[in-house]
C-alpha cells in the first residue's frame, strides 16, 4: 500500500469514528477529493441527525397525546362510574339492574385498560423511569399477595408462599405490579379449590420468583406469544381480561435488566419465572 | 494371596490406547529416539576420542602396555611373569643409540625385541619383512630410512655407528624389515637380532640398581598389562613390594604409561565427568519428560473414565509403564543405529576437517561398540522410566471428576495484571512464555550453555597467540645452532663458528644475525657487592647457593657475555630502561640481567640497574659498561644453560669481537623474506652437509607444533560445544513443538474466535523469538562474565596466550538462532493445521 493511501485511510477511519461519536467537523476546505468527501459526510450526518430529531419530536407528540387521553378521559370515566353507582342505588327493576351492573363492569374494565395502556406507554416512551435499588424480594411478594388475597379467596384458591429473605435490585412499586399481574393471571386461570405457589430461588447473578398454578396451561405454540400486547390465549377467550397484564409485566422486568419466562403445556398448569438481577 | 488375573486385560488396554493416538506416539518415539541418539553418539564419540587420544599418547610413549619395569635382568622378567596380577608381558634388550651424523635430527634407539609381540607393543612391528634373526640384520622405521636417505627395500645395506655405553662401533647391516615410522614418537625404535645383542651388549649379571657404574646395554625393559587399567600406579607399587619385599633399594625403576593416566583417580576430573554426565542425562530427561507429560495429560480424561469403571491407580500406572516400554522398544533400537551412524559420520568429518591422519584410532572398536550401545540403551530406558514417573503419578492419582475438567497446561502466574494491557500477538506470546517458567528456564539455559561454551572456546582459540607461542621457541624466521649445544663443553655451547657465520652470510636472501657468546666474569663492587652480601646471608644455609654466592662476594662470578646486532636487539623487552641501538654500538653500554637459582623460586635478582656501572672480565680483558637497560635475553636466543648465579651482559657484536680472540655464536637468527623455500633449502643443505654439527630449525616446525595444539583444543572443545549445541537446539525444538502440540485446542479456539492462521503463526514465532532473545541476553551476560573472570584467569598462566575479550560467536549465533526460532514454529504449526478447527476443538 502506498504511503499516501495509508494516510487517507487513517483520515477516513477518523471521520467515521467521529461521525459515530457525533463529534465530526470538517477539517479544511480545499480542492482534494477528501475535502469533498468530508462535506458529503457532514451532509449525511446532519440529515440523519435531523431525521432522528424528527422521530424524537414525533415521540414527544405521542407522549403528549397519551397523557392528554389519559387525563381527558379520567374525569368522564370517573363520572360514568359515579353515576352508575348512583344508578345502582336507585330502586330499579330486575332487568335494569342487570344492565346497570353490566355498565359498571365494562366501565371498570375500561378504566383498567386505560390505566394499563397509559402505564405501558409511559414505560415505553420513558416518561416513567424505573428506579431499581437494593430491595427485599419478600416485601414486594407480600404486598402483591395481599393485593390478590381477596380475589383468591373468592375462588377458594390457596396461596402458598415459600418465604425467603433475599435482596435483589428492582423498582419496588413497578415490580410489585408485575408480580401482581402474574398472580392475577394465575388466580384468574386456575380452577376453584386449587393452589397457587410462589417460590423464590437465588442464583449468583439473579433472583428468581416463580409463580406456579395448576390452571389450564398454555400450548407450546402459544408460549412465545403470550407476552405480546393484547394477546389472549385460544382457551381463555371466555375469561375476562384485556391481554395487557403480561405485556406490562415483561416491560417492567426487562426494563430493570431481568426477564420473564413461562413454562407450560395444555393441562399441565403454568410456571412463570421472573428473573431479577441481584 | 491369589490375585485376579487381569494383567492381560490391562496390557491389552494399554496396547489399544497406543493404537488410538498415532501422531502423539510418533512424537514420543521420536523423542526417545533423539535421546538414544544423543546418548549413543555421545558414548561412541566420547569413547572414540578417548581411544584416539590414548592411541596417540601410546604412540608418543612408544608402547601400549600399561606399565613397565626398567633396566632389569631376565630373572626379574620371570618374577613379573609369574605374578598373578600381570599379563601380556613383553621385553626388549637395550643395545645402544645410533650416532650417525645423518641421524642427528632423530633419536634412534637400537634394541632387541623379545618377540613379535614386543615389537607390536611398541608399534614397531615391520609391516614389510620381519624382525632381525641373524647378527647382521636390522629392522628400521621409514623415518630412520629417510634420514639415512636409503630406499624402502628389503636387503638394503645399512651402515650404523652404534654408541653402546659410550663406545662407538661401526656396523654394516642388511635391512630385513621396515614399517611406517611415527614422527610423534619420542624416539625411533630400531631392531637388532638377539645374536647381535648377545655379542655386543651381553646381559650383565649384576643388577643395574646395585651396580656402581652406570651402563645400560644388555639390560631388559619389561612391559606388561594389568587386568584393568584402574589405579596403575598403586598396582605397580604393590607389585614391587610383592616381588622385592622391603628392600626398596633393589626396586627397579618403573614406568607408567601415561596414556592410561586418565584412569588414575583425580577428584577434579571425576567431578567434571559427573557434571557433564548429569547435564547430558538432564537433557535427555527433559526431552522425554516434556513429551511424555503432554502425552499423558492429553489422555487424562480416558484415565479418569477407566477409573470410574473400576481400574485402580496401580493398574493405570502399570498401563502407563507398559506404554513407555513399548515406546522404548521402538525408539531405542532405531536410536542406537542412527546414533552409531551419526557418530561415525561426525568423527570422520572431525578427523577430516582437523586433518588427523590416524582416523581409524578415533573410532570405537567393535567389541567396545556393543557394550557402549547397551549402556546407551539402558541409559535411555532408565531415562524414559524416570521421565514417566511423574506423569504416571498424575495418571494414577487422577479423580474421575477432575479428569473431566483437567487442563493440560498448568499456569503458574498468580499475579493480577493491569487491566488495560493492549493485546497483540507480541504480548500474548510474552505472557505465554511465563506460563511455564520451568520449561523456559531449561530451554534458555541449555541454549545459553552451548552458546557460552562456543564463545569460551572461541575466546581461547583466538587468544592463543601464535607469535607468543613461537617466541619462546624461535626468534626470527629460522635458527641455526649446534646439534648438542646444551652440552656444557665450550665448543658446543657456542658451536656456530665465525666461519659458519661467514658461510651463512653468503646465502642470498637470508640475513644472518649471529648471537655471539662467551663466558666471562662480573666483578661486583660497592652497592652491588653489598647486595650480594645480603643474599649470601639470606641463603647462607643453602649448601649450593652459599658456595656460589661466596665466590661472588669474594670477587667475581659467572657472566654470560653476548654480542648482538641491532636487529636482534629489537627482540628484547626491557623491564627497565630502553634499548638504544646506536648507544649500544658505541661499546660503552650493556644490557644486563642477573639470575640466581634458588629454592624460593624468585630467580630474577636484578642487582644491576640502569645507570649502574658493571665491571666485566673476559679472558684477560677487563671492561666497564654503563647499564642502559635491564632485560632478559629471549629464551631461544640464549644458550639455554644457566648457572646458579650469573649475569647476562649483552653488548654489541663489535664490542664482543674486541673482547675475545675466539669469537663464536651460540646460535644464529635468520630472517628472510623468501617464500619459495629456496633459502630454506639452502640453509638446510648447509647444515646437513657431511660433518656439519649444525641443526636448522625454522618457524614452520614450531607452527606445526602449534597447530597440533590448536587441533587438540578444537577437537575437544568443538565436539563438546557441538554436542551441547545439539542438546540446546533439541530442547528448543522440543519446547516449541510440545508447546504447540499441547495447546492445539487453545490455538484452535483462538482461531475460532477470529485469530487468523497468519496471526497465530506470528504469535508462535514471537514466542520462540522471545526464547531466542532471552537466550541471547543470557548468553551475552554469562559469556561476558565468564570471559572476563574465569577464562581470563585460567588462560593467564599460559605463556602463549593473549586475552582478548570477544562476544563475536554469540553475535554470529544470535541471528541464526532467531532465524531458527522463526522457522520452527511455522513448520510445527503447519503440521497441526492438517486437522480442521472443529476436530481440534472437540479434542479433549
Amino acid at each position: 500500500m502506498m504511503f499516501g493511501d495509508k494516510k487517507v485511510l487513517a483520515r477516513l477511519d477518523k471521520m467515521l469514528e467521529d461521525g459515530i461519536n457525533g463529534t465530526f467537523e470538517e477539517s479544511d476546505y480545499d480542492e482534494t477529493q477528501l475535502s469533498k468527501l468530508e462535506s458529503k459526510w457532514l451532509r449525511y450526518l446532519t440529515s440523519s441527525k435531523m431525521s432522528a430529531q424528527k422521530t424524537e419530536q414525533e415521540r414527544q407528540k405521542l407522549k403528549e397525546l397519551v397523557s392528554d387521553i389519559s387525563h381527558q378521559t379520567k374525569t368522564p370515566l370517573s363520572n360514568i362510574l359515579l353515576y352508575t353507582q348512583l344508578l345502582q342505588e336507585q330502586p330499579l327493576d330486575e332487568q335494569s339492574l342487570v344492565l346497570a351492573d353490566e355498565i359498571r363492569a365494562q366501565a371498570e374494565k375500561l378504566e383498567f385498560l386505560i390505566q394499563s395502556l397509559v402505564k405501558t406507554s409511559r414505560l415505553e416512551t420513558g416518561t416513567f423511569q424505573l428506579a431499581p435499588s437494593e430491595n427485599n424480594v419478600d416485601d414486594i411478594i407480600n404486598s402483591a399477595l395481599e393485593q390478590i388475597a381477596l380475589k383468591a379467596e373468592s375462588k377458594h384458591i390457596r396461596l402458598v408462599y415459600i418465604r425467603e429473605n433475599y435482596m435483589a435490585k428492582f423498582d419496588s412499586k413497578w415490580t410489585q405490579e408485575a408480580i401482581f399481574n402474574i398472580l392475577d393471571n394465575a388466580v384468574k386461570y386456575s380452577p376453584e379449590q386449587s393452589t397457587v405457589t410462589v417460590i423464590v430461588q437465588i442464583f449468583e447473578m439473579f433472583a428468581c420468583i416463580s409463580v406456579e398454578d395448576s390452571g389450564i396451561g398454555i400450548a407450546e405454540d402459544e408460549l412465545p406469544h403470550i407476552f405480546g400486547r393484547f394477546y389472549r390465549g385460544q382457551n381463555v377467550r371466555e375469561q375476562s381480561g384485556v391481554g395487557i397484564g403480561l405485556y406490562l409485566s415483561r416491560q417492567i422486568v426487562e426494563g430493570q435488566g431481568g426477564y420473564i419466562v413461562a413454562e407450560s403445556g395444555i393441562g399441565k398448569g403454568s410456571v412463570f419465572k421472573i428473573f431479577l438481577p441481584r | 494371596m491369589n490375585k485376579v488375573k487381569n494383567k492381560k486385560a490391562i496390557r491389552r488396554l494399554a496396547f489399544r490406547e497406543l493404537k488410538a493416538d498415532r501422531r502423539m506416539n510418533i512424537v514420543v518415539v521420536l523423542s526417545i529416539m533423539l535421546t538414544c541418539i544423543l546418548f549413543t553418539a555421545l558414548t561412541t564419540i566420547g569413547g572414540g576420542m578417548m581411544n584416539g587420544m590414548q592411541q596417540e599418547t601410546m604412540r608418543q610413549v612408544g608402547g601400549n602396555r600399561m606399565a613397565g619395569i626398567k633396566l632389569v635382568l631376565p630373572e626379574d622378567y620371570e618374577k613379573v611373569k609369574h605374578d598373578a596380577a600381570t599379563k601380556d608381558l613383553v621385553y626388549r634388550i637395550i643395545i645402544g643409540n645410533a650416532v650417525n651424523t645423518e641421524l642427528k635430527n632423530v633419536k634412534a634407539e637400537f634394541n632387541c625385541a623379545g618377540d613379535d609381540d614386543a615389537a607390536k607393543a611398541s608399534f614397531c612391528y615391520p609391516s614389510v619383512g620381519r624382525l632381525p634373526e641373524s647378527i647382521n640384520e636390522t629392522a628400521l622405521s621409514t623415518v630412520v630410512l629417510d634420514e639415512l636417505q636409503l630406499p624402502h627395500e628389503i636387503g638394503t645395506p645399512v651402515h650404523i655407528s652404534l654408541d653402546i655405553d659410550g663406545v662407538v662401533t661401526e656396523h654394516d647391516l642388511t635391512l630385513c624389515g621396515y614399517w611406517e615410522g611415527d614422527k610423534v614418537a619420542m624416539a625411533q625404535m630400531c631392531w637388532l637380532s638377539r645374536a647381535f645383542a648377545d655379542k655386543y651388549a651381553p646381559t650383565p649379571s649384576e643388577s643395574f640398581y646395585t651396580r656402581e657404574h652406570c651402563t645400560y646395554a644388555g639390560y631388559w625393559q619389561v612391559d606388561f598389562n594389568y587386568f584393568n587399567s584402574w589405579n596403575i600406579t598403586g598396582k605397580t607399587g604393590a607389585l614391587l613390594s610383592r616381588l622385592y619385599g622391603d628392600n626398596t633399594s633393589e626396586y627397579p625403576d618403573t614406568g607408567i604409561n601415561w596414556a592410561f593416566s586418565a584412569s588414575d583417580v583425580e577428584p577434579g576430573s571425576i567431578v567434571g565427568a559427573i557434571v557433564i554426565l548429569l547435564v547430558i542425562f538432564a537433557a535427555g530427561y527433559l526431552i522425554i519428560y516434556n513429551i511424555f507429560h503432554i502425552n499423558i495429560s492429553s489422555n487424562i480424561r480416558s484415565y479418569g473414565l477407566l477409573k470410574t469403571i473400576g481400574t485402580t491407580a496401580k493398574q493405570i500406572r502399570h498401563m502407563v509403564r507398559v506404554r513407555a516400554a513399548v515406546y522404548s522398544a521402538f525408539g531405542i533400537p532405531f536410536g542406537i543405529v542412527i546414533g552409531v551412524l551419526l557418530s561415525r559420520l561426525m568423527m570422520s568429518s572431525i578427523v577430516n576437517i582437523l586433518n588427523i591422519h590416524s582416523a581409524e584410532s578415533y573410532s570405537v572398536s567393535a567389541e567396545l561398540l556393543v557394550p557402549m550401545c547397551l549402556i546407551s540403551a539402558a541409559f535411555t530406558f532408565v531415562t524414559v522410566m524416570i521421565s514417566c514417573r511423574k506423569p504416571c503419578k498424575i495418571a494414577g492419582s487422577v479423580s474421575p471428576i477432575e479428569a473431566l475438567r483437567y487442563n493440560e497446561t498448568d499456569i503458574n502466574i498468580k499475579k493480577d495484571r493491569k487491566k488495560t494491557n493492549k493485546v497483540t500477538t507480541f504480548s500474548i506470546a510474552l505472557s505465554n512464555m511465563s506460563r511455564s517458567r520451568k520449561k523456559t528456564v531449561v530451554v534458555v539455559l541449555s541454549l545459553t550453555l552451548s552458546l557460552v561454551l562456543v564463545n569460551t572456546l572461541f575466546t581461547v582459540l583466538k587468544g592463543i597467540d601464535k607469535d607468543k607461542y613461537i617466541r619462546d621457541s624461535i626468534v626470527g624466521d629460522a635458527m641455526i645452532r649446534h646439534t648438542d649445544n646444551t652440552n656444557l663443553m665450550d665448543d658446543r655451547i657456542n658451536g656456530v663458528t665465525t666461519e659458519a657465520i661467514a658461510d651463512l652470510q653468503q646465502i642470498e636472501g637470508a640475513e644472518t644475525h649471529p648471537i655471539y657468546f662467551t663466558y666471562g666474569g662480573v666483578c661486583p663492587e660497592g652497592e652491588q657487592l653489598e647486595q650480594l652480601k645480603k643474599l649470601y646471608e639470606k641463603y647462607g644455609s643453602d649448601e649450593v647457593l652459599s658456595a656460589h654466592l661466596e665466590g661472588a662476594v669474594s670477587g667475581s662470578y659467572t657472566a654470560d657475555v653476548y654480542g648482538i646486532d641491532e636487529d636482534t636487539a629489537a627482540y628484547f623487552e626491557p623491564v627497565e630502561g630502553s634499548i638504544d641501538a646506536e648507544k649500544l654500538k658505541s661499546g660503552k653500554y650493556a644490557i644486563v640481567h642477573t639470575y640466581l637459582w634458588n629454592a624460593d623460586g624468585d630467580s630474577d635478582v636484578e642487582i644491576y640497574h640502569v645507570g649502574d656501572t658493571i665491571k666485566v672480565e673476559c679472558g684477560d680483558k677487563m671492561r666497564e659498561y654503563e647499564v642502559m637497560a635491564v632485560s632478559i635475553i629471549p629464551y631461544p636466543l640464549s644458550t639455554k644453560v644457566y648457572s646458579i648465579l650469573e649475569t647476562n651482559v649483552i653488548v654489541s657484536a663489535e664490542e664482543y669481537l674486541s673482547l675475545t680472540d675466539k669469537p663464536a655464536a651460540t646460535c644464529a637468527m635468520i630472517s628472510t623474506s623468501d617464500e619459495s623455500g629456496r633459502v630454506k633449502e639452502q640453509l638446510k643443505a648447509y647444515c646437513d652437509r657431511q660433518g656439519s654439527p649444525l641443526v636448522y630449525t625454522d618457524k614452520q616446525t614450531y607452527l606445526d607444533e602449534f597447530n597440533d595444539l590448536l587441533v587438540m583444543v578444537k577437537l575437544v572443545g568443538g565436539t563438546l560445544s557441538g554436542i551441547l549445541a545439539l542438546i540446546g537446539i533439541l530442547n528448543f525444538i522440543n519446547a516449541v513443538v510440545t508447546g504447540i502440540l499441547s495447546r492445539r485446542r487453545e490455538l484452535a479456539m483462538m482461531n475460532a474466535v477470529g485469530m487468523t492462521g497468519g496471526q497465530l503463526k506470528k504469535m508462535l514465532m514471537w514466542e520462540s523469538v522471545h526464547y531466542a532473545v532471552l537466550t541471547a541476553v543470557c548468553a551475552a551476560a554469562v559469556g561476558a562474565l565468564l570471559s572476563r573472570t574465569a577464562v581470563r584467569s585460567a588462560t593467564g598462566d599460559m605463556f602463549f596466550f593473549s586475552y582478548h575479550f570477544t562476544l563475536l560467536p554469540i553475535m554470529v549465533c544470535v541471528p541464526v538462532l532467531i532465524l531458527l526460532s522463526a522457522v520452527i514454529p511455522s513448520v510445527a504449526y503447519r503440521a497441526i493445521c492438517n486437522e480442521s478447527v472443529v476436530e481440534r476443538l472437540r479434542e479433549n
Partner: protein
Amino acid sequence: MEVLKTEELTKIYGKEQNKVTALDNANLVVKQGEFAAIVGTSGSGKSTLLHMLGGLDRPTSGKVYVENKDIFSLKDEALTIFRRRKIGFVFQSFNLVPTLNVYENIVFPIQLDGNNVDEKFVGEVIDILGLSDMQSRLPNQLSGGQQQRVAIARALAAKPAIVLADEPTGNLDSKTSQDVLSLLKVTGQKFGQTIVMITHNEAIAQMADRIIRIEDGHIVKGGEPNE
C-alpha cells in the same frame, strides 16, 4: 431483518459405506435480535449445523448467508477474519486464553482486528455480566460459571452479527447454568443481539424465543421465524 439464512445445507462425513449424513438440506432463517435455540439429541447434527453457521467447517453442499453474505465463498483466512468480526462464539468448555486476564480475553477479538476498544460498551457488558471486580484475574482463578460469563462477554464485545453458543451450560451445574443462561438472555435482549444456541436440554431451550428442532440432520420444526 434476516441476519442468518441457510440454503439446503448438507454435510456428509466419510465415504462409500461409511457415509454419514450429519446434515440434510437444512433450511433455516434467523431474524435480527432473535434468541433461537437449536435442540436435538446428541448425534442429531446440531453441532455440525452450528459449526457451519460459524464458518468453522465447510458444508458438503448448500450455503450459509450471514448478513446476506455467502460466507463459504470466502477463503479460509478471510473466513477467519469474517468470524472475528461477525460471529461471537460461546463454547461448552469456555475456551478462554489461559494467559490473558479477563479484560484482555474479552477485548481479544477486537484487538486482533487492530481496533480501538469501545470502552463504554465493553464496560457496560462487563457490568451486566457481573465481571467488574474480576477484570484483572486470570481464567484459572475463576469458577466455571464465571469463565463462561467471560466467554459471553468476549462474544458480545465485538458487537457481532450473531452470537453462537455451543451447549454453553454443558460443563456447568444446574444452578450456575441458570445464571449463565439468564445473562445470555438478558444481554441478548438488552443489546438486541441475535443469539443462536444449541442444546440437548429442553428446559434450557425454553429460555429461547424460538426453538428449532433437529433430528437426524433434518430440521423438523422452527426453521422459520415466528410471525
